[in-house]
């Protein structure tokens, strides 16, 4: 997971729970494209229409709290979201997103700095976030080596496949 991503910011408050990110009523869907249509429906009904590949979500504390539904990470990833930057994340959502290869960065103070529609550029390796619209910048907390390894492999599925491939060769 090298390089710099650029995209617009969608900004939300604290404690955005998984029912708001992906309502329980659609949990029987599994096709990522269908799942993506309901992204953020309960907090921002226009989100799914407006989001473009490369855009990012900026939020307050405890983003992704509530249920363990992987749909919450799938819906954001499939809708084109390139990273989520928040004050903090709920732990199951964190695992789910990283497993899918969707970078999550803990960025203290970010929710107050960025406004909806600002252009962000994020250096994932350095953890540097720049709001190009206002010139403000924030440094994200570094990711653990294990999480970096998962993201570097493009998610846990390719990583496990690779590990098992290696094991099988031994």
């Amino acid at each position, binding site marked *: 997971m090298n390089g710099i991503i650029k995209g617009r910011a969608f900004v939300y408050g*604290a*404690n955005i*729970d998984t*029912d*708001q990110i992906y*309502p*329980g*009523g659609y*949990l*029987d*869907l*599994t096709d990522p494209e269908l799942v993506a249509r309901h992204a953020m429906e*309960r*907090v921002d009904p226009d989100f799914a229409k407006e989001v473009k590949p490369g855009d990012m979500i900026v939020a307050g*504390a*405890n983003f992704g*709290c*509530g*249920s*363990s*539904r*992987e*749909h919450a*990470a*799938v819906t954001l990833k499939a809708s084109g979201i390139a990273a989520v930057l928040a004050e*903090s*994340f*709920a*732990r*199951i959502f964190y*695992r*789910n997103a990283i*497993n*899918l290869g969707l970078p999550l960065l803990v960025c203290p103070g970010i929710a107050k700095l960025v406004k909806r529609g600002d252009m962000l550029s994020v250096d994932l390796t350095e953890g540097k976030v720049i709001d190009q619209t206002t010139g403000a910048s924030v440094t994200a907390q570094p990711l*653990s080596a*294990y999480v970096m390894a998962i993201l570097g492999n493009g998610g*846990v*599925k390719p990583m*496990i*496949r690779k590990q*098992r491939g290696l094991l099988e060769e031994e």
Partner: protein
Amino acid sequence: MHALEKILARAAGREEVITGEIVNCAVDLAGINDLYLQTLRSFAEMGGRKVHDPQKVVMFLDHFAPASTITQADNQKQFREFCWEQGIDLLMDINEGVCHQILADKRLVRPGMLVVVTDSHTTTHGAFGAFGTGVGATDLAIILITGQLWFRVPEVIRIHLEGTIGKGVFAKDIILKVIGTLGADYGVYRAVEFTGPVLDRLGVSERMTLCNMTTEMGAKTAYIQPDPVTFEFLEDKLELDSPVLTTDPGYRYAAVHTFDVTGLKPQVAAPHSVDNVSDIAEYLGRPINQAFLGTCTGGRVEDLAVAARILKGRRINPRTRFVVVPASKGVFLEAMAKGYIQTLVEAGATFVTPSCAACLGTHQGILAPGETCITASSRNFPGRMGHAEAEIFVASPASVAAAALEGKIADPVQYLV
């Protein structure tokens, strides 16, 4: 080390683990529920063919029990077929109830186990001295393939409960008070242990409610040190096979909070956040369209018992619906034998088969825009039980029954003295 750390150390095949480190652990029991067809997808996508140890896997068809759409029916069909193919004998079909209650009823969780379910309320099993934690579908698929998963060894917060519980006040009120005081994100990434003399007066059912609700403060897991109450519950069905782990003297908790429950009044979490907690007195008289009693948080025999006590020989308010869902087949049978079902149906309750039902807003009692519900379940996020403009108050089973009776939020204490 904390007892929880010893559980992880044992599961990792190590003498010791250190707070904050990431360890790979063998999982003792892995559960999948029917919201997570992605588990089977991820299993296939990672090249899984045979489940590592089918005896350690439980499949629950509980969230959509029984199926109300063709997609749900098809998902459940795929789960059943997977179990038959893979030799997973612990298939809990739609007649069994909610995952966490089934695990308790069947005594499948014992002290010292590492239990992982695709459900956030897996913290419930701290009531049995187990390390229970929720994960998503792909993490669970990794367990199916390898038998293992990585965990970060969590800091532990200790919540010490002192004082005397008043009449009409229950574990649900205590934990709502704790969450209201500490906040919905206070426990994120950390474990919560309950200690103190109040636990001596709480049965397994109420301890499950305490541990279950720690999820609403973001906790990774919960813990209550097994004691005679735990053993009495477990030993009527099986013999304990491993020594019970205890926390070393001198273990340093990340934080210790003492709550004196003396004088605590019934609590309520008002819309739309579980930490928006106050005395129920603040909302007395608020009209209620639906009172909901059930779920892995508030659908146990004791919960139906207190509702039956309040409603015995009375009728619910004609403008209120009272939806009751026993948490499991076991709960249903016991409540039937004790006459609670008869009492509640006579009082006007609408019964739903043991399952998650309307708890997650998919079926069997969901809310219209502008309606108000009081629930014994765990969450009041916008839209959790139906329309996003419905209002949900989270309270104890007694408060739910009192509201059904009066058609408005009411203090249950008057019916319990």
